């Protein structure tokens, strides 16, 4: 068999593609055969080659393009086209969908970043799982109390006998003042100092840039500086070997022996300097449990690999008993608490590791999920409602042979498109909102999602999932319709999916109303807290913070000097100011209960409008004031006998004091605590005062503050003047609550906006579907208000149901939260009624315009078409 040359044929096949090439090839072959008979084989070959080349003409390409089989690429192209047509046709609904998803995504993403931040807290620390804090639990008369501050000798005493302690460090954290510059041009700087044992860097794996991590913290009066502190103090010059001048009684100088990176933003330990423990405890420390005065500090240990915390705990007491038999130390139980658990442990705090309320974290996670669910519900509701209007389109496609799968693909594609358009918008929105959010939560977010590829990949997958979830229901609903019904146009009145849509709307409003009720009650509680704590105008009271017992020698002079400053109304010297904690509870065999001792002067009660219930206040002019005390009502009530004017108790010093008056109970610490029995000790008796409370008569703070600075400069040139307004101080006390409230307010608004968007979309849809019905009603004589009622009735019914479901839910959760407060508001039914009313109002505003527009439409315009 003679065959024609191959190469031209191969080329022809390549160019023409399958299909047309067969015919041409056949014709050429036949011609070739004819030519062999007529002109001989070699000429036939030449002709064949020439013809084949000449056959490569442009029409082949056109033909190829038009006659190939449709590929999935074409299908997607087509579906995209249809999707965009649908978007454009329902522009307002597309916009609502897009807006809802964008808001929901932005809200959730913000919270997710916050949650990730919480997750990666301290993740730079090696051996995190082996770091433990030593704690003790003592039980007295059924009162269990946990201690996180240990006797400073505890670990040095037992560490030899417990080999599992690979390393330990005691840590104390303090704000201390550094003096910069020379005499005459000095500058004071407050910095956070950690004092720690040599093994600090073994326990906590911070990296040193310069200096030896093993020998650092071993030499007295040395210090390790962080890079940012070095930058602040020394600028660009090398800090190693330099000295910093401390502002303390002995004018200590610390030599800088090490430079370390700042603790990362996600570190629980934050500080500017680390110095050896000897600067706090003193050199040549001895292990001793004798003596009435001892230092208590938090202790962190690194357990050796594979050792069991509980087993190690067992060894502490036996080891300790070799050193002391003091029941204070040996008749309590010790425990080891893992470092990773510490930051959620809000029961106790050691001022080293900042704690977060785990419930708030969980709540945030819940809100993040619910916000995105709200947005998805919006999409599902609106799309499935709108999808019915596209019944005809779907029917036609079914008739032309579209499979159910391709219909489902169409709807999934549309929802994916919306999701992917909303993602960049959401990220943009989130970026805009982040500074605001960071201000509310009070710290910068550490996690940088831009550089985290795993986050971005997860986000991508999440969006795909979101698209599929939101598109699946409408897709299944619509593709499942019988196409004859679809083509006859009966779908608009189909009841399919209507119930589900109603349930989903109710769910949205349950969540919105519950959040709204929750936030309202939380706000009520917080303002109640502020009002009860304060019976005076808090922004006109200034608190000056001194160090412990700072004014014990010169309180009278300082008080007089401050009194002289123009604008100062009243001054009081006190041991603590509102918002402070007491230094523990005093106990005495004379009383069956513990009490707080509170050093005040006679001006204090007057300044804070605290009234004396019985007896008298302190008399500043009497010589016997030093032998007097006052008690609060709780104290008086706790005693079985009448204590007023009694002189048989001893409160301080060697002599008995006379109880000259009973004051009303006043809140002093945060409202989380109950008012405890309190004894007011006059400053004349015990002069360890460290606070100056200043009541101002003007709002001209500047002159008062410059006056204060002058007084301060004269008396305490080496100390930073530390003052704050009382309301700031009190706000700080409830900072966690205020922040939580702020964040919840934000997300409540977001939730309501998203829900209302959904409502708006649905009401528009209902109005469109019912246009004809309404027109006919109008023709038959229905009034605009009747029509409006008809349209709005359903929405109100749904919100009503939602309110009924939401109120007990909100009640339950807020009630739980209020358990934390010793003094809490009563939850009133009125709040829920008010909120429900508000929701009705918001809903009315949302659907109002559309409803009235529909109700007022001229029937002629709508009925004319039929």
């Amino acid at each position, binding site marked *: 068999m003679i065959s024609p040359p191959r190469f031209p044929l191969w080329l022809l096949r390549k160019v023409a593609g399958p299909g047309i090439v067969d015919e041409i090839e056949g*014709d050429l072959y036949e011609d070739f055969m004819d030519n062999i008979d007529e002109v001989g084989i070699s000429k036939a070959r030449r002709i064949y080659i020439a013809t084949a080349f000449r056959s490569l003409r442009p029409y082949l390409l056109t033909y190829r393009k038009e006659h190939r089989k449709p590929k999935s690429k074409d299908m997607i192209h087509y579906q995209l086209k249809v999707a965009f047509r649908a978007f454009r046709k329902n522009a307002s609904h597309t916009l609502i969908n897009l807006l809802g998803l964008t808001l929901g995504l932005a809200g959730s993403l913000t919270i997710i970043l916050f949650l990730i931040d919480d997750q990666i807290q301290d993740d730079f620390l090696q051996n995190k799982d082996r770091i433990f804090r030593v704690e003790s639990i003592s039980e007295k008369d059924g009162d269990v109390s946990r201690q996180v501050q240990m006797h400073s000798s505890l670990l040095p005493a037992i560490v030899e006998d417990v080999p599992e302690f690979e390393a330990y460090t005691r840590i104390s954290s303090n704000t201390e003042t550094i003096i910069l510059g020379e005499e005459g041009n000095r500058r004071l700087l407050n910095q956070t100092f950690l004092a720690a044992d040599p093994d600090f860097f073994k326990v906590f794996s911070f990296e040193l840039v310069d200096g030896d991590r093993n020998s650092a913290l071993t030499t007295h009066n040395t210090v390790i500086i962080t890079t940012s502190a070095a930058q602040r103090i020394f600028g660009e010059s090398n800090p190693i070997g330099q000295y910093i001048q401390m502002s303390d009684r002995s004018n200590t100088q610390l030599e800088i022996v090490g430079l370390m990176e700042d603790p990362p933003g996600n570190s629980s330990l934050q500080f500017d300097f680390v110095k050896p423990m000897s600067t706090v405890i003193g050199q040549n420390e001895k292990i001793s449990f004798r003596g009435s005065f001892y230092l208590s500090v938090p202790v962190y240990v690194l357990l050796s690999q594979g050792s069991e915390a509980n087993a190690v705990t067992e060894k502490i007491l036996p080891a300790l008993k070799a050193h002391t038999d003091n029941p204070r130390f040996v008749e309590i139980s010790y425990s080891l608490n893992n470092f990773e658990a510490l930051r959620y442990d809000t029961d106790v705090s050691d001022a080293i590791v900042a704690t977060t309320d785990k419930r708030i974290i969980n709540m945030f996670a819940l809100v993040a999920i619910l916000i995105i669910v709200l947005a998805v519900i919006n999409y599902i509701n609106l799309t499935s409602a709108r999808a019915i209007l596209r019944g005809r389109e779907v029917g036609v496609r079914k008739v032309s042979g579209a499979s159910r799968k391709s219909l489902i693909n169409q709807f999934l594609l549309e929802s994916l498109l919306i999701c992917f358009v909303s993602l960049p918008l959401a990220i943009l929105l989130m970026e805009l909102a982040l500074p605001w959010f960071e201000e509310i939560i009070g710290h910068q977010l550490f996690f940088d999602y831009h550089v985290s590829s795993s986050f971005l990949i997860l986000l991508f997958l999440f969006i795909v999932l979101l698209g599929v979830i939101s598109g699946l229901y409408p897709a299944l609903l619509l593709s499942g319709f019988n196409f004859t019904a679809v083509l006859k146009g009966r779908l608009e009145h189909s009841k399919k999916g209507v119930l589900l849509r109603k349930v989903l709307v109710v769910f949205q409003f349950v969540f919105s109303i519950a959040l709204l009720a929750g936030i309202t009650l939380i706000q009520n509680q917080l303002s109640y807290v502020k009002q009860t704590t304060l019976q005076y105008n808090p922004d006109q009271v200034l608190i000056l913070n001194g160090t412990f017992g700072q004014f014990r020698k010169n309180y009278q002079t300082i008080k007089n000097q401050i009194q002289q400053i123009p604008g100062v109304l009243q001054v009081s010297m006190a041991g603590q100011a509102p918002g402070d904690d007491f230094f523990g509870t005093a106990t005495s065999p004379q009383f069956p209960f513990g009490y707080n001792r509170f050093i005040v002067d006679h001006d204090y009660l007057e300044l804070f409008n605290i009234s004396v219930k019985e007896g008298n206040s302190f008399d500043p002019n009497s010589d016997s004031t030093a032998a007097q005390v006052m008690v609060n009502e709780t104290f008086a009530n706790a005693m079985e006998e009448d204590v007023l004017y009694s002189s048989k108790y001893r409160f301080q010093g060697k002599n008995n004091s006379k109880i000259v008056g009973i004051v009303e109970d006043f809140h002093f610490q945060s409202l989380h605590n109950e008012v405890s029995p309190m004894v007011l000790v006059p400053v004349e008796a015990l002069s360890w005062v460290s606070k100056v409370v200043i009541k101002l008569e003007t709002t001209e703070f500047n002159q008062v503050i410059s006056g204060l600075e002058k007084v301060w400069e004269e008396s305490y040139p080496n100390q930073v003047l530390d003052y704050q307004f009382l309301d700031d101080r009190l706000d700080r006390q409830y900072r966690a609550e205020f922040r939580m409230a702020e964040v919840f307010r934000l997300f409540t608004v977001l939730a309501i906006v998203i829900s209302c968007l959904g409502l708006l979309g649905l009401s528009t849809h209902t109005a469109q579907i019912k246009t004809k019905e309404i027109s006919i009603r109008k023709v038959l004589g229905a009034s605009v208000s009747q029509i409006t009622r008809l349209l709005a009735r359903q929405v109100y019914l749904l919100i009503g149901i939602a309110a009924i479901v939401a109120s007990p839910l909100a009640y339950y959760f807020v009630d739980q939260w209020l358990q934390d407060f010793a003094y809490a508001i009563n939850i009133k039914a009125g709040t829920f009624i008010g909120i429900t009313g508000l929701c009705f109002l918001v809903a009315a505003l949302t659907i109002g315009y559309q409803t009235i527009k529909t109700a007022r439409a001229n029937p002629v315009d709508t009925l004319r078409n039929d």
Partner: protein
Amino acid sequence: MKGTFLGEFEEVVLLAVCVLEKEVYANPVRRKVEEHTNRKVNLSTIHSALYRMERKGFLTSQLGAADKRRGGKRKRYFNVSPYGLKALEEMRRVRESFWEIFPKTLLNSDLT
């Protein structure tokens, strides 16, 4: 005239398609064209014209049987469409309308 124009060569090919009674595919069409025009025509030119005219709607086509002589490939049979026929008649009408008024003198002198 319509947007699609029937070229001179196309007209010839189309006429060939009309004249042939059966087995109207590229090779016989070519033979017919060569026979009537007395010139060599490449097969690829015929292909090009046929497919082009199909696109223009002058021709319809269907696939025929395969043949051993063609290497087992199928033939594409072409048929003139009513539109193609109309185009041919239109062509002829235009020409004849010119011939009718053709100056006889020119014709005579040409003949002599």
